């Protein structure tokens, strides 16, 4: 049963992040995802200090607010004429530093391990169960992640056309009257939500990997957004299943193995993708050369 819950948690993380990651990669904002996943830390710490408990809803709220603040700060530094990568770097390091200080100052009151924040402890998922009316409903993390995935799917499904247009051609989207800024913040809000929901179980670094790596792999395999979304989720799920068994075999970190497997899949796609892989490129070039000769 433990295997099942861990794999299910990993797959839910992969699905949530895989869908959002596609839009981040297409909008060239992959590193914003990295920034958000780090800078939600003070939000979590403040939620802890206020409530004094590991209340998931409050933590979600705190982190979502911090995520939006991060995006807002990055945006306003950029509007002030700073390069986007520099503004990302400044904002997320400052917020992360505040988070670490808050946690280590109140280490006595906060039962939140920094290692756990960074690497997560997916192996313990099954022990923290949700109990309603004395009836065991299964791991709380699965419910939290499932709910987040549902929210993400509903929002993306409702506004699929708008998100698609914003991802490929923001100028056109603005011209036909889509509130581009609103959808930008909506997407970022979803990213921070899913970061926090995944935080406890898989940690900040795996979230970044799951946001970027499967989506980039899918980007190499197809030219259609709808197919890319499906591929990205499937690749994420495959990485979490493969990663779990690899971790069991190696006796090492589950989250780390999941990312390692995702990385291997990316390398495979990078070399062998029928559309954009190295081999396909080489063949195309050779056939062009033969045709011109």
């Amino acid at each position, binding site marked *: 049963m433990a295997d099942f819950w861990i794999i299910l948690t990993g797959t839910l993380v992969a699905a949530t992040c895989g869908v959002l990651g596609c839009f981040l*990669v297409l909008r060239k904002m992959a590193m914003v995802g990295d920034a958000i996943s780090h800078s939600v830390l003070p939000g979590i710490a403040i939620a802890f200090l206020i409530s004094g408990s590991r209340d998931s809803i409050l933590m979600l709220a705190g982190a979502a607010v911090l995520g939006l603040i991060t995006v807002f700060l990055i945006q306003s530094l950029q509007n002030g004429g700073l*390069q986007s990568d520099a503004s990302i770097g400044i904002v997320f390091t400052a917020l992360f530093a505040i988070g670490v200080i808050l946690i280590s100052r109140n280490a006595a009151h906060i039962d939140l391990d920094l290692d756990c924040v960074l690497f997560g402890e997916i192996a313990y998922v099954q022990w923290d169960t949700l109990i309603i009316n004395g009836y065991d409903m299964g791991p709380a993390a699965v419910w939290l992640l499932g709910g987040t995935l549902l929210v993400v799917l509903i929002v993306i499904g409702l506004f699929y056309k708008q998100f698609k247009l914003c991802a490929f051609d923001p100028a056109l989207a603005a011209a036909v009257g889509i509130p581009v800024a609103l959808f930008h913040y909506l997407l970022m809000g979803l990213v921070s939500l899913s970061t926090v929901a995944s935080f406890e179980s898989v940690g900040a670094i795996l979230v970044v990997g799951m946001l970027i790596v499967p989506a*980039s792999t899918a980007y190499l395999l197809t030219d259609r957004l709808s197919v890319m979304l499906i591929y990205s989720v499937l690749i994420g799920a495959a990485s979490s299943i493969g990663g779990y068994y690899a971790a069991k075999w190696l006796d090492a970190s589950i989250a780390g193995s999941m990312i390692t497997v995702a990385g291997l899949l990316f390398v495979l796609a990078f070399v062998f993708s029928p559309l954009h892989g190295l081999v396909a490129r080489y063949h195309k070039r050779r056939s062009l050369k033969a045709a011109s000769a």
Partner: protein
Amino acid sequence: MLSTFFNWITDPNMQWILMGSLLLGLGSGVIGSFTFLRKQSLLGDALAHAALPGICIAFMLSGVKSIGLFMIGAIVSGVLATFGIHAITRYSRIKQDAALGIVLSVFFGVGVVMMTKIQHSGNGNQSGLDKYMFGQAASMMLSDVYLVGIVSLILVAVCTLLFKEFKLVSFDPGFARGMGIKVGLLEQLLLLMTVIAVVVGIQAVGVVLVAALLITPAVAARYWTDALGVMIVLAGLFGALSGVTGTLISGTLSNLPTGPVTVLAASSIFLVSVVFAPGRGMVSKLLRRMRQRNEVKRSYGNGLAAVEGDRAMISNRANSSERSAD
């Protein structure tokens, strides 16, 4: 509190550590200026994460906790990471930002797997690896301080010697090539120096926050000046200042890790620069805008008066023409 502070600062060991973090801040501020100008600010973040597997491999192979060996391992895997980023952007349609993210997370994931492997293998000697996450400059050994200081000094020296070349390569690589400068070689050298600066910086502030040592002082310096030379000197000063402040605060107040405090010191300098820097700062922008608004208002006021006058004249004329029609 104050007396512990004085005890602490007069301790010769502490003076060395302060010196080390000062030189470290100086070196990474100087290197950071170039990475910022070349629009590679987040490279530092990726390289810092990518250093982890190198450190783990160095530990696995040697079995000892030596900063020198760790640094060599980290530099090797950092260089591999830059090759990886370059290959992904060069040979596929994936953009720079996603390539950075991929290399960062995959290298780090591999590193975490290795680190847990080391910890599970029951080697009691691995505790130092954890320090790499958040940095602990205040507990550096004297030999580490020497190493960090010397490496930082070398970085600054190379930047000073090759200042003209680096400047040309950063602003106009095409022109530099035309002048007969070996652009490729210099770019590689800058990359290597960035890797080294990151690896040294990990000692003090840890993996996650080392990017700030490179980016924040350089960007803060950019607000004060347009001249590269002045900017680099300022960035070095800001870096050194935040290094010293961070070490002092984290050494005197217990419970505070060095890295975050150093980074917050740098961020405060950045904040002051954003608000108060002449020309680019928010205050001076606001003042300029107010002055312009006043000017416009004044000229608009004059214009309004002129328009009123014209209108009066026209209506007068119309009246008179009406009268003449009568």
